[in-house]
């Protein structure tokens, strides 16, 4: 009767499971692409403030897996960051 493995993934959320069992797990907030959400179609490479939010401490480009950016916008973001780096608006690496 008791399931040995309960679905702790976010995919089980829409199923009508037992709430007491689900509460144990951390409910992850669904990540949304920032550019889609704010309807920013053009990623401006001169907008340092915006780009900086996708640059962690080390200076690398924040992966999609973490930021939740959609593929299309990640690609645009990538070129924007690379352009900004060339004109020394953003670092290539920091240590």
């Amino acid at each position, binding site marked *: 009767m008791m399931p040995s493995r309960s679905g702790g993934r976010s995919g089980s959320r829409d199923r009508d499971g037992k709430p007491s069992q689900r509460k144990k797990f951390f409910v992850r907030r669904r990540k*949304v*692409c920032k550019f*889609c959400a704010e*309807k920013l*179609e*053009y990623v401006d*490479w*001169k907008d340092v403030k915006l780009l900086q939010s996708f640059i962690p401490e080390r200076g690398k480009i924040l992966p999609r897996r973490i930021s939740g950016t*959609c593929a*299309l916008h990640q690609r*645009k973001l990538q070129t924007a960051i690379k*352009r900004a*780096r*060339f*004109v*020394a*608006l*953003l*670092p*290539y690496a920091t240590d």
Partner: protein
Amino acid sequence: MRLYDIVVLVSPDLTDEDAQKTLGDYRKILADGGAEFVKDESWGRRRLAFPIGRKRDAFYHLFQVKAEPALVSETERRLKLSDQIVRHLAVRADEELKRAAKMAVRIAKKQAKRPPRPPAAPEAAAPRPAPPEMAGEMPERSES
């Protein structure tokens, strides 16, 4: 005529006036070649994210111009020759902007088509809505 973003980094060893003067030269080259200035803004003296040629900061200036490709390449050639220019970058901007505008229209259209969410919980007695027809339509969940 195409739209270009041209960012120029002028050496910090120059005084403010000298930096403006060198920028003026390039402005003149662009203007003489028939360029149309959309933006012509100075970002002032900024710290570089990393040193370029022993320099730690530079005067940034942005020209956003509508110009012929030949004129831009000529301007770039001259920027490259100059010692006072630490670095420059000229990038075409119109294609991206055009695509962005198109996308914005598409998103607006899509949103207009989608019916608004029912405000409250639907009544249990209400008949089940017909299943959405998928025939012939584009996949709706392709991007989110």
